[in-house]
């Protein structure tokens, strides 16, 4: 794509999200979502083949439906409250519709079906933008309306997402689908604690974005999209196998890595609010996620020469440049001792 046009489109995506995050007028928020959606379609279709067309179409249809539902919720809110300012949504109907619309945008169960298929059909870099940047705008709206969300619906969606994210990823070998199911599960964790402490949602979002960025950077570096092709990294750059191991263990939520911090804080917040079965269930279901991350590490870093792997070596293309990998790695694995700093967020 012409670099000037590509920059313009990328800036429009950024602008759309910024408008959503910074507006106080409901209509502007809707406009921001639409700008974001329309501008990201050419980015998803950077390579012009039927698979990306299919993925972009699915993405467009689901997100457009969600935007329409959002508009309906805004109008109902306008009818009942008489103003366009974004505050807590007082009318329960509007609140439920808005929550469903935002869940559809995020990819929470039962609206998760588009995430694996869209992520699989696009290139790794577009998948990266899809799974990290696109989550920021809906999450910021959920943050702002969090006092008024119906707890039952949100918690049901969260727990189902964690289940689906865990079980769905078990049968996958394609890396992008694995990251998609991981995204569904993490969104579940984030929305579970939204009503109790939105700050922890933001913490989880931050650490999730760092870990997903790291994982995608490592995948882009070795140009691998399947588990088998990932098992060749020890041939090309053996150090990245260790980095993949550390980041995957961190995503699985193992102490002492930083992926444990959001899970621990969320469990703590939920337990302080006297729900005990819920965090236990969530924590045990996160083990399903850990299982397929471990499977990835087994084929990548923990079984090496002299055991052979089944994959033919690919042609050596030029090494893609990875932006910011060392700071990302450090942040996604070593942040746990900084947990007491979270007290400044109160």
């Amino acid at each position, binding site marked *: 794509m012409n670099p000037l046009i590509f920059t313009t489109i990328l800036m429009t995506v950024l602008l759309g999200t910024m408008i959503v995050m910074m507006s106080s007028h409901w209509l502007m928020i809707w406009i921001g979502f639409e700008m974001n959606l329309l501008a990201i379609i050419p980015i998803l279709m950077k390579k012009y083949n039927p698979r990306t067309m299919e993925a972009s179409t699915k993405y467009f249809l689901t997100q457009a439906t969600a935007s329409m539902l959002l508009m309906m919720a805004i109008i109902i809110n306008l009818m009942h409250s008489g103003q366009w300012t974004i505050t807590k949504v007082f009318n329960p109907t509007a609140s439920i519709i808005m929550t469903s619309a935002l869940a559809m945008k995020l990819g929470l169960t039962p609206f998760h079906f588009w995430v694996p298929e869209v992520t699989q059909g696009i290139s790794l870099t577009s998948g990266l933008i899809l799974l990290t940047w696109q989550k920021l705008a809906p999450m910021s709206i959920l943050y702002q309306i969090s006092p008024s969300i119906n707890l039952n619906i949100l918690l049901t969606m969260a727990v189902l997402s964690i289940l689906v994210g865990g079980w769905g990823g078990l049968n996958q070998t394609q890396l992008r689908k694995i990251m998609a199911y991981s995204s569904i599960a993490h969104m579940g964790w984030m929305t579970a604690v939204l009503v109790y402490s939105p700050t922890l949602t933001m913490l989880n979002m931050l650490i999730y974005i760092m870990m997903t960025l790291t994982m995608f950077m490592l995948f882009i570096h070795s140009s691998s999209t399947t588990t088998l092709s990932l098992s060749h990294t020890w041939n090309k750059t053996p150090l990245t196998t260790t980095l993949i*191991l550390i980041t995957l*263990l961190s995503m699985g939520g*193992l*102490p*002492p*890595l930083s992926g*444990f911090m959001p899970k*621990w804080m969320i*469990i*703590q917040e939920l*337990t*302080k609010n006297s729900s*005990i079965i819920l*965090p*236990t269930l969530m*924590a*045990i279901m996160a*083990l399903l996620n*850990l*299982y397929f991350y*471990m499977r990835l590490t*087994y084929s990548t*870093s*923990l*079984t*090496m020469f002299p055991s052979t792997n089944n994959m033919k070596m690919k042609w050596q293309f030029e090494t893609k440049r990875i932006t910011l990998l060392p700071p990302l790695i450090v942040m996604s694995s070593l942040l*746990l001792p900084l947990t007491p700093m979270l007290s400044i967020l109160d």
Partner: protein
Amino acid sequence: MLKIIIPTIMLMPLTWLSKKNMIWINTTTYSLLISLISLSLLNQPSNNSLNFSLMFFSDPLSAPLLVLTTWLLPLMLMASQHHLSKEPLIRKKLYITMLTMLQTFLIMTFTATELISFYILFEATLVPTLIIITRWGNQTERLNAGLYFLFYTLMGSLPLLVALISIQNLTGSLNFLLIQYWNQALPDSWSNIFLWLACMMAFMVKMPLYGLHLWLPKAHVEAPIAGSMVLAAILLKLGGYGMLRITTMLNPQTSFMAYPFLMLSLWGMIMTSSICLRQTDLKSLIAYSSVSHMALVIVAVLIQTPWSYMGATALMIAHGLTSSMLFCLANSNYERTHSRTMILARGLQTLLPLMAAWWLLASLTNLALPPSINLIGELFVVMSSFSWSNITIILMGANITITALYSLYMLITTQRGKYTHHINSIKPSFTRENALMALHMTPLLLLSLNPKIILGFTYC
């Protein structure tokens, strides 16, 4: 406590900056020095614990375990030299880094005051152990073994996290030094029963309890020698240590909640001892013997009398040294024949008489011969379980008999009798191996002269 932790962390730059011919010498020497520092902790002047700071403390229960942990690192390094000799230098350094990381987490776990910090470090020990087992183990079964190890332990310990946070909610602080003074009875309710279960299951899986022990034979057998040593000697004791700490907070539910686990342990120790008699794999035999000894510790901890606590602590230290020594001996066989089958390396006494002496001492301490500390531990446990319920003496007596049976079976199969015809090409014992066995045996024998340092905090 930083005087032990910081040098251990600094062992990692030491390995990465060492030259190729100095790497083993440097790490072994400095880890031995660190273990000498930790010996000073055994001097516990008052009845209360030694408080170093808000975060670290040491009391008569954790000090012997700490000394055992630091003593074991040089031994692990000595034992790993042979099987790593053909690996490239970077992989040797990675292996030593994993061992050192594991050591750091273990030291911090045994001295943690805050129970959540204990939990995080308890889980953190899983990661280096998993990497050691799956990356450097020898057979394809090690992948399955690593998964079993990780997931059994995690399934047990995630409810522990929730339980610890809810206890913190109730009591305001999880600092262990405070809790031992504040202790109140838990009210009787269904949710407190689940709290009891959530607190104990993590340690039951780690010990392991008989029904949940499936990960242990896999992990012990597939791990390389240092992995087996640290698993048998220390990681199982983490479960015992955790149980000893947390049962102080869990009364009075323990009086009735402990029954199923007591039954499982009493039955399990007989079952696992009996299975040892039918094993063909030497490491598997030692692994099942570990389950059997740890079942005794579980019985002791759940009975909760002063004598049983003394027996549990003594048994943990004694079993740590004995089991680690048995794994070293099994490894010396493995390095020569590249097989764990017992009968492939039999009749070794004629060829390696000094090693046969170590085999004899190890088997004798395994079957708890007087006056070793193994006997003291087992005897205290048997006595306290007899006072708890007279009938257990039958099971305990049967267990002691069967333990003697399989220990002698192992000794006679590997050492006595006519040697095999293919055995004439094995290398003689290295000085390193003899030093390893001596370093295991000497503390064990010396402790029988002064066992009060390992009898824990109920000795008075």
